């Protein structure tokens, strides 16, 4: 497929793997920030072929995984209301809240619909004036412009039965939280290419400087990721700590100014909880007061819905790379992909789920031989 297969060429990938292994004089620890990158790494087995050269820590950049339990519970509460049509991206439907997930609410009669664009949700609101239509606005800076556009458009069209349940998060504060942790092990980052397509990389420059850590803006195909790893390793070996751009076909330093403008018009920075990590100050986006009528939390008075995460779950330490998933006391016993306690076991490419499956495979080898 044009513009994809070029970045999946196995011979070039193997050449890059060789180059990485040759240029690393020691084992380096890198974090890929974005869930999409983790997906490629796990799907292609990139973490395995790198051998001793690099340890990849899967970062907190999967919006499905980091959406706090509390927001999931609020979504479930709304979706169960008979006057509500609850709209969401597909993969939020199976995220477990305190008691169940959106698919279960749907089976009990809730009107839950998958949309591919938040603007579709605005359309549903226009066509169903007797219903309240709520869109679950989750994600990082990548999905924020489209979600902002939906709110903007609803106001422009005077659609009053539309609101958004916002759980937006932003990348840089999460990176700071990881770097500020006294037990941090991450020595370099692959920044999320799509986030930077919107935001550019100016905001990462002070981070690279202050924490003396290489940051490479990286794409999502196997060759992108391998090249990003190689660029980060080369910086580490040279003792440099700069922001470099691997994803040149998509990202400019200043990002997409008009998308940024739309986001700052509709949203403002707020403190936001991250599943498994806790609240990170200034790490989220919330609706500005002039868009309050479109804020589902206010419209439906959801502030009272609170949730506690399991104390047995050490997801925060896993996400920061301080604990290997199998070192968690709950791993594989209390916590499995079928009954996950925390985000990294919820996601099929989450660190815990990836280790769980890989471990099953290795255990099988031992049994059979």
């Amino acid at each position: 497929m044009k513009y994809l297969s070029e970045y999946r060429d196995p011979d070039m990938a193997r050449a890059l793997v060789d180059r990485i292994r040759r240029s690393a004089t020691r084992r380096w620890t890198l974090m890929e920030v974005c869930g999409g990158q983790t997906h490629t790494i796990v799907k292609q087995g990139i973490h395995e072929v790198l051998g001793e050269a690099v340890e990849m820590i899967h970062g907190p950049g999967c919006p499905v995984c980091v959406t706090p339990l509390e927001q999931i519970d609020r979504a479930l509460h709304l979706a169960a209301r008979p006057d509500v049509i609850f709209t969401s991206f597909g993969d939020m439907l199976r995220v477990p809240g305190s008691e169940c997930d959106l698919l279960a609410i749907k089976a009990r009669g809730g009107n839950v619909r998958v949309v591919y664009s938040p603007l579709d949700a605005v359309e549903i609101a226009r066509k169903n004036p007797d219903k309240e239509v709520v869109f679950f606005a989750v994600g990082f800076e990548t999905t924020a412009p489209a979600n902002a556009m939906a709110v903007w458009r609803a106001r422009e069209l005077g659609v009053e039965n539309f609101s958004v349940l916002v759980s937006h998060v932003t990348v840089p504060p999460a990176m700071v939280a990881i770097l500020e942790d006294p037990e941090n092990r991450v020595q370099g980052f692959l920044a999320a290419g799509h986030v930077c397509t919107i935001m550019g990389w100016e905001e990462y420059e002070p981070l690279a400087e202050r924490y003396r850590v290489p940051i490479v803006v990286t794409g999502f195909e196997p060759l992108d990721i391998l090249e990003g790893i190689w660029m980060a390793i080369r910086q580490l070996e040279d003792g440099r700590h700069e922001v470099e751009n691997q994803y040149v076909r998509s990202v400019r330093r200043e990002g997409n100014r008009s998308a940024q403008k739309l986001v700052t018009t509709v949203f403002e920075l707020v403190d936001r909880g991250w599943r498994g990590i806790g609240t990170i100050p200034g790490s989220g986006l919330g609706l500005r007061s002039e868009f309050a009528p479109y804020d589902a939390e206010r419209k439906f008075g959801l502030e009272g819905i609170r949730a506690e995460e399991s104390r047995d779950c050490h997801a925060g330490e896993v996400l920061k790379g301080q604990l290997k998933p199998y070192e968690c006391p709950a791993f594989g016993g209390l916590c499995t992909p079928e009954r996950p306690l925390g985000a990294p076991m919820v996601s099929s490419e989450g660190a815990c789920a990836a280790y769980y499956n890989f471990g099953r495979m290795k255990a099988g080898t031992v049994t059979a031989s």
Partner: protein
Amino acid sequence: MSATSTLRSSALQGVACPTPVVDHAKVLLGHGSGGKLSAQLLRDRFLPRFGNRYLEALGDGARVPVEGTEIVVSTDTFVVSPLEFPGGNIGHLAVHGTVNDLAMMGAVPRYLSAGFVLEEGLDMAVLDRVLDAMAETAAACGVEIVTGDTKVVDRGKADGLYVNTTGVGFLSEAFRPSPDLARPGDSILVSGPLGRHGMAIMAVREGLSFDADIESDTASLSPLVTSLRESVGEGVRCLRDATRGGLASALNEIASASGVGVELAGSVPVPPPVEAACEMLGLDPLYVANEGVMVAFVAPEAEARALAAMRAHPVGEHATKVGRVVPEHPGMVVLRTALGGTRVVDMLPGDQLPRIC
């Protein structure tokens, strides 16, 4: 009981982020996905009540004794929205689905029954087209529709129409492929490119358009099985059509039933438009439904003959080897990536859901 298909949900499949499976007080759409939830439903609710040695074999149909010989019986229910889609309609599926299930058991399909639930208000023209498709398809497959039933329900109580078909097929000689017969060393062959049916349905339902139309692959696999029987015979260990849950689920079922590991190596055949659609929606073609693709496990020495037999038919002209059976990791399917890494290709809990990230 065959794993009857719920085509309504089978188009929505792929690598999804969150994957919990818990006990549910209500039936979920995911219970019809062909993944872990479907297996759980069967294991916890149906098998304990109906269990017997024929059912517990969990084949695509049952081989039952009749006066000193054996026949195969299989049943399948078809619910698909929209009723008509590029490449066919629900009538084609209703005949091909049961014919294929009989063929996967090694039988030559002979007779079908057809039961219809019609919704008040359904256009007669649509019904005519569905019945025409069934008549033509049955004739082409060499089966007769010998009994049937119709019921009509209130408007809004059904999605246009539902069809159940039950089929009877005859076995010949010693040809008894079965999901529990895979052995280390066996070659794993796929009869054609993957993902066309699921993505054709999804494209229509979601209003997606691509450079080239994606057509459903609905087709009879019976001629392929006949050729395999004639040219390979007992060298054929297991056959399974890769319907809902896709190739990944079919392989997992066989790996479990046989207690062996499956290793996929190299690439699986996916048509470019299907690949493009899957990329766009964040779905994995390994889990997308097919209606005219089967996987065959054959003894290593029979591989070349089996491939030649399949490629002799238009529906199998792109047949190819996708992997082999290994003694390691019993019950699991592992993909060797082009880079030399590995990836566990697990059963999905429910339907594949489009991804955000």
